[in-house]
């Protein structure tokens, strides 16, 4: 399909406008779209993931409104890097890893919107992970133990039980 405006370039953007119940279809190329201002405000070229995030963070809703009022009085601030919540919500980026703690109460809704989830379930670093890795291994072993008992594989279950005890001791000593 060729662009309706310049009749030269292929149309890559397809719009349906409905004004007073009247429907108009537009098929235009990106160059003409930018010239005619059919694009998002601010233009597509500088529209990035951070704008989207910022939009999500500033969405109006009963919760957000009270947050905004609270922010005007005394905004949440990360003591480590000095970033405030309004600054974060504007830029869509944290200043340091402690911001996650400082803004914790506001982050779950954001993570749910972006990832559909709020809890990590992937890799755990050996060092900074501390006991997490051991706890994870223990959860897995406990699960296997239940399975073994259900299937009456008692020899294997005994081995697992011993390993779980070992881990419990290791965690207690850390």
């Amino acid at each position, binding site marked *: 399909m060729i662009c309706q405006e310049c009749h030269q370039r292929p149309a890559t953007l397809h719009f349906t406008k409905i004004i007073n119940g009247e429907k108009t279809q537009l098929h235009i190329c990106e160059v003409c779209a930018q010239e005619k201002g059919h694009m998002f405000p601010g233009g597509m070229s500088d*529209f*990035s*993931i*951070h704008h989207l*995030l910022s939009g999500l963070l500033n969405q109006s809703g009963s919760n957000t409104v009270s947050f905004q009022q609270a922010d005007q009085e005394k905004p949440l601030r990360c003591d*480590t*890097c000095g*970033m405030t919540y309004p600054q974060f919500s504007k*830029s*869509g*980026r*944290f*200043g*340091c*890893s402690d911001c*996650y*703690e400082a803004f914790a109460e506001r*982050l779950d809704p*954001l*993570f749910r919107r*972006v*990832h*559909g*989830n*709020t*809890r*990590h*379930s*992937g*890799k*755990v*670093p*050996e*060092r*900074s*992970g501390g006991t*997490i890795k051991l706890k994870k291994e223990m959860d897995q072993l406990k699960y296997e133990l239940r399975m073994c008992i259900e299937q009456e594989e008692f020899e294997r279950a005994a081995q697992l039980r011993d390993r779980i005890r070992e881990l419990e001791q290791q965690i207690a000593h850390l």
Partner: protein
Amino acid sequence: MSFQNFITNAVSEWMNGNGEDADIAISSRVRLARNIQEYPFPILATDSQLEQITAAVRQVMEDEDLKRQGPFEFIRMDELTSLQKRVLMEKHLISPSLMADSRGGAVLLSENEAFSIMVNEEDHLRIQCLFSGLQLQKAWEAANQVDDIFEKHVNFAFDERRGYLTSCPTNVGTGIRASVMMHLPGLVLTNQINRILSAIAQVGLVVRGVYGEGSEASGNLFQISNQITLGQSEEEIIENLTSVARQIIEQERAARKHLMQNRRLPLEDRLCRSYGVLTNARIIESDEASEKLSDVRLGIDLGIIRNIPLSVMNELTIMVQPGFLQQYAGQQLDSDSRDERRARLIRERLQAAME
């Protein structure tokens, strides 16, 4: 080995076209975003903090395990000209954002260019691994190994509940961004691409341009990557993307078969004409070059155009870009001279491949 090689040679290992399904899935990439606990993220870090981060990364180069993956070369962004940075970006070794904003930036490159570790991009570290064809699992394993090596030397910012803490909330958790670059002319020619792309969006994946977020898809090349980084394990993310990529490959193969069975003559005509243009043109703009290179690549895949290895097509896709052309010419070129050089380079490279 000097850093000059990364800039003067077009060929990286991922371009060899030897990987699984490399005719359609050109390359697989896995990137891990990591930050060092003690420092603010690069947007807020002072110059001296950025220097300390760079120094910490350099230290890791001495690690025996890393040397086994290497050899690696350390390149500071402030030692490169803007053209040299552009060439590294065109080869996918650094991101457009590291090219544009290089404050305190550096990159650690493995000799075969399979690994590139960006320093002080949006995060302190971006460990990237790039392989030919559909090899996401292998790319993840390799990136994971390098991640483990770094982890022996530095404390990564990590939280039990949130996982790896990143500068942007879209990367938190695993910090993993896995992607497959796919050549999908069959789906474009049979008008199925939009249907497929919207289906992809519904399973939590995203389609980006060839150079990542905000870049355009040109030459029927699409980069498909995971969107979600929190709440799924790395393995789940890799498996999910691999399975979707396999399905797209199947759809693309079916579309190509359909075209060959039902529209063979017009298809052959189109692909051969494109070949004619590339082997004869004296001036060619980059959009036209990508389009015609895509046609010729399809012609090779379908056995219509013979005697040109896929690796040459991968190489040309990189070499016809503005940065590379100017590097190749050894001088800055205006747009008209680039169009002329581009045409000449393509003619010469295809000629050499045929001999």
